[in-house]
């Protein structure tokens, strides 16, 4: 039965929410639907975590729990199934998504045209949830694109500033990425067959490991770039600053918090998982690109004056670190990458929520035109400082554990490579990436100093009010999550690490043997 599998509810609940919102008559009902739905999703993912942590290994199919497959397009060896299954990483991502949807609902408490807004927002999250539970390349890709297109309208209609341009640019660039991706996926489908039996099933493809090396060299860049565009990999990141700057609050939150994670998730779950040989051989190309992303984004952020641009570039830097760590192809660094995804997701959502709330009051995002907000809206300002601290890697908050794990893992890999005579690329880029912690501190403190501290710049701002209860709830939730990861990292790392067991993740095993 379709509904006997718990995972399907991650898609089903958003769909019900869609229906619910469509039937709503006023904003109160819409809020209720959004909040109830997203709370249910959080509960569901929490339940999943609890179950996962005590589930016996035998229940898993290649590390995937709740594995189940339903026929969809199956005529004539097409073999498109609706295959679901989760491992620790997917669960972590599901939890992240539901939390951000929850907080995003609160952040858009008083949005204009709420019905349409929530419809699109929930459609977007349907895509996100579907993507994370899917184990079938086709389904995965479908949900991936479902998550992309609502962005256009969400930014276009509810955005601000140069929204037409940004929305179009974002959509086209991301779709451009998915064009490469689609080609890559179809290529994988055709070249992974054993005995003429084609399959879209991720696990089967990985198990067969039948893609020839030459084809891996062709398909790996396709898929990696395809997902990398969404992961804001240099030089395909340029949609991100404009897109984030124009998007409304909840959309920025969801986009930076969750959608960009789709990119990183896809990179390892599809590109590296299915094509281990190419992942090992071609990692250096992308390592250079992502290494550049890390410092490049950070440096760019240093001189921006628009709050959202600063944060968008910081996302480029942090998400660059995710891909960077994934490309280290070792368990520690990749675990760190996922931690960084979680951490960045929550913290950047917090940032965007706060920026949205500040912008909603001051009607400007130019840091040169604001100042001394700590005096005017202390709650928001304190939250901003906390977010900033998380971003620059203060221990006790999530950023530190993620970055530390990444650095330890990458350094280990870099030195191993170096000592094995395999070049010092990883080592050099690890050191370069480490430098980002300083640059991050520079731009974070620059903003905090200019925006929150110092004398009040604009006298009109003195009349502004502090956060409302829904804004407090939204930000407090995120802060609690950020602190939870920061204080109890082992809980989350234990969730994640299983995915990158060399026995399951062939690329790591290859890298180790090398």
């Amino acid at each position, binding site marked *: 039965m379709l509904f006997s599998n718990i995972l399907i509810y991650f898609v089903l609940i958003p769909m019900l929410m869609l229906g619910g919102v469509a039937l709503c008559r006023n904003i109160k009902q819409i809020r209720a639907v959004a909040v109830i739905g997203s709370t249910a999703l959080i509960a569901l993912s929490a339940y999943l975590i609890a179950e996962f942590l005590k589930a016996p290994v035998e229940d898993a199919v290649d590390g995937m729990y709740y594995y189940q497959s339903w026929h969809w397009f199956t005529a004539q060896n097409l073999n498109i199934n609706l295959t679901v299954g989760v491992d620790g990483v997917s669960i972590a991502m599901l939890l992240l998504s539901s939390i951000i949807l929850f907080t995003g609902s609160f952040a858009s408490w008083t949005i204009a045209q709420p019905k349409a807004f929530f419809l699109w927002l929930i459609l977007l999250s349907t895509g996100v949830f579907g993507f994370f539970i899917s184990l079938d390349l086709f389904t995965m890709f479908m949900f991936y694109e479902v998550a992309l297109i609502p962005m256009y309208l969400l930014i276009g209609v509810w955005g601000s500033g140069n929204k037409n341009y940004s929305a179009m640019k974002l959509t086209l660039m991301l779709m451009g990425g998915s064009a490469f991706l689609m080609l890559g996926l179809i290529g994988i489908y055709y070249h992974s067959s054993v005995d003429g039996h084609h399959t879209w099933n991720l696990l089967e493809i990985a198990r067969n490991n039948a893609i020839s090396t030459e084809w891996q060299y062709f398909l790996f860049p396709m898929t990696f770039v395809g997902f990398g565009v969404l992961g804001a990999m240099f*030089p395909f990141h340029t949609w991100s*600053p404009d897109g984030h700057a124009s998007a409304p609050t909840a959309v920025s939150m969801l986009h930076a918090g969750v959608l960009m994670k789709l990119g990183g998730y896809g990179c390892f779950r599809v590109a590296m998982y299915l094509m281990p040989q190419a992942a090992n051989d071609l990692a250096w190309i992308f390592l250079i690109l992502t290494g550049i992303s890390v410092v490049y984004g950070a440096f760019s952020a240093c*001189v921006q004056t628009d709050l959202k641009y600063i944060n968008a570039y910081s996302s480029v830097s942090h998400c660059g670190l995710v891909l960077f760590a994934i490309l280290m192809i070792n368990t520690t660094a990749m675990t760190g990458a996922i931690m960084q995804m979680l951490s960045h997701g929550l913290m950047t959502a917090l940032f965007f929520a706060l920026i949205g709330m500040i912008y909603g009051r001051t009607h400007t995002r130019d840091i040169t035109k604001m100042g001394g907000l700590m005096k005017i809206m202390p709650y928001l300002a304190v939250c901003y400082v906390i977010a900033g601290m998380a971003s620059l890697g203060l221990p006790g908050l999530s950023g*530190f554990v993620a970055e530390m794990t990444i650095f330890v893992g990458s350094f280990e890999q870099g030195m*191993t490579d170096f000592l094995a005579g395999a070049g010092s690329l990883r080592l050099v880029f*690890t050191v370069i990436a480490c430098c980002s912690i300083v640059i991050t501190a520079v731009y974070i403190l620059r903003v905090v100093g200019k925006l929150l501290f110092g*004398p009040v710049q604009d006298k009109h701002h003195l009349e502004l009010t502090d956060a409302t209860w829904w804004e407090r709830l939204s930000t407090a939730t995120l802060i609690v999550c950020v602190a939870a990861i920061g204080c109890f990292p*082992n809980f989350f790392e234990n969730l994640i*690490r299983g995915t990158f067991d060399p026995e399951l993740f062939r690329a790591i095993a290859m890298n180790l043997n090398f």
Partner: protein
Amino acid sequence: METSAILILAIPLLMFLFLGLAGKYLPHKWAGILGTLGMGVTMVLAYTVAFEYFFSGNSLFIDADGNRLQHVVFNHDWLNFYDKLSIRLGFLLDPISAMMLVVITTISFMVHLYSNGYMRDHHGVWETGFQRFYAFLSLFSFSMLGLVVATNIFQMYIFWELVGASSYLLIGFYYTKPSAVSASKKAFIVTRFADLGFLIGILVLSFYVGFYSDGNITDAFTFTSLTSVPVDGVADTFQVSEGTAQVIRDLFQNSAAPMFMGASVLTWALVLIFMGGMGKSAMMPLHIWLPDAMEGPTPVSALIHAATMVVAGVYLVARLFPLYLMAPAALDIITVVGALTALYAAMVACAQIDIKRVLAFSTISQIAFMMVSLGVTRLDHSVALGHEVHEGLGYMASMFHLFTHAMFKALLFLGAGALIHAIGSNDYTAMHGLRKYMPITHITFLVGCLAIAGIIPFAGFFSKDEILTACFGHSTVWAIWMALVAGLTAFYMFRLYFLIFWWKEHKVHDEHHAPHDQPWTMTLPLVILAVVSVFAGFVPFGSLVTWNGHPITGSGFLTNLENLNWSVAAISLIIAIVGILIAMKMYKKENPLPEKMRNALPALWDWCHHRFYWDELYQFITHRIIFGLVCRPIAWFDRHIIDGTMDAFAAVTNKASYAIRGFQSGNVHMYVWIYLIGAVLLATVTMICVL
């Protein structure tokens, strides 16, 4: 024991959370009392723990031969990187951590107490954010305590960062003042830059330890084993855990160990770690944040930027000292950096007007003393001016000085705070001749000055004397250099003292508003610290704190006096007295001598007064080079080249669209032409290709 240990960390943390979250709803007074009480309890606990460690004679802490042992009270996994490496959080008791517990809790408690008075104005109106202030103080105390009891280098790094952040918050306490904001930013970023070195150093160390050992790196990384490295000829290490210790030792001594630019990678690692220490301890050239950090409230300066946080660098080197012992090159670097910094800071301190800045530079200079002292420590037997030097004396001296310096420097800062609070200005030009108005402050300040100048029997004398002895034992050049710096120290401290309390009569406009001693909350800590500063010199450090736990002196009250190297003591005393006398001559009474000297060497004055233009240099590097030549071009590149390329795709598509629109001319003839050409081309091209 374990309960006390947990409570020592937990009370300040909980206090931070409570005051941070609920402080707004508490009356100011209660927030202050609560914070102070919390810290008081912590202090008592720390005292009991330290007392138990040093004096109980428990076999956990001291072995049969009287060697002190390292004891891990608890140690829990916090973050597993991989099966061999994880971060543990724990509580390590050994001589230096027990000593630091005492120092930190004492000073912190004094500052908590003192702030009750300091953080309100003469009419008793509380500073805005008073509760926040106490929350931050608690956070800082928690971080600092966590740092000193760290069981491993990762834990140290974690709390190291937390200390940095709480320092940031406290320096920027007056957040509406732009100078405070930029000072806090500067402090954070400079130390962060240093931490980058620390981080990479840790990574290098952790990798090599893991690479060469089959065992668990986490265990190896616990200080108990990191510092139990057997050193040639000396067996008395804390606790030899063979496997990992042997690995580390091999790493250093194995000629096959990897080299990088002529030095072993491990030496590099230690130098990088020392870079972290340079940042926190404000060694040149990373010292520039400390003088600016005086923008924070004065009690904060006393707590963080005089007594505790800034010595974290020294503590770090001391922690890893057995490792440094195996990399003499790293120690030499520490010596040179320390010596240069000491002189530099002392010179600059002579030309400052702001009393807190003088104290700040004196702090830098004194910490440099400790660094030098560590840097000159070797285990070979050496002789200083005819007397044999105890093995590892420098280490002991450094820790001793750390201890005494914390006391008298906190005293000086709190005294300065009292003055500032009374006068409302940081400049000595606004003070002069205050001795009659603020007698308690005057006396305590004088005690502090005497202590730092190294006049017998004040605390500073003993510790500084040991340092100089250690220097003489290692290298006469550095010893003389440091002795001169000690003289300068005496000079600038008494310059400050005379300019504040003498020089000329204080002008009082209104009897009611004449400066006066502060309330008991402020004077009590002064008095207590003054008393400590007088007697701290007699603490038998040689029997309590040594690099390997092996006592080098007896434990009597007068041990320090008995063990004095009198030749060295004489030199340092003479130099100090000369310094004081010159200061007295120049500054006791208003006279034109200082002016004359300034005019005689204007360049020297300018350079000293402007701190050798380091700030300007940094300003140039950060703003012109980093921002102007890196950030801006990158941002430009992003907007115009990368973005431009993407936009160009769109523009080209549009252009192409316009360019080819002529084909759709609306003319049937044209349509047919194109049709025909298409068909014929299709045929001919295929024919050419196929046939």
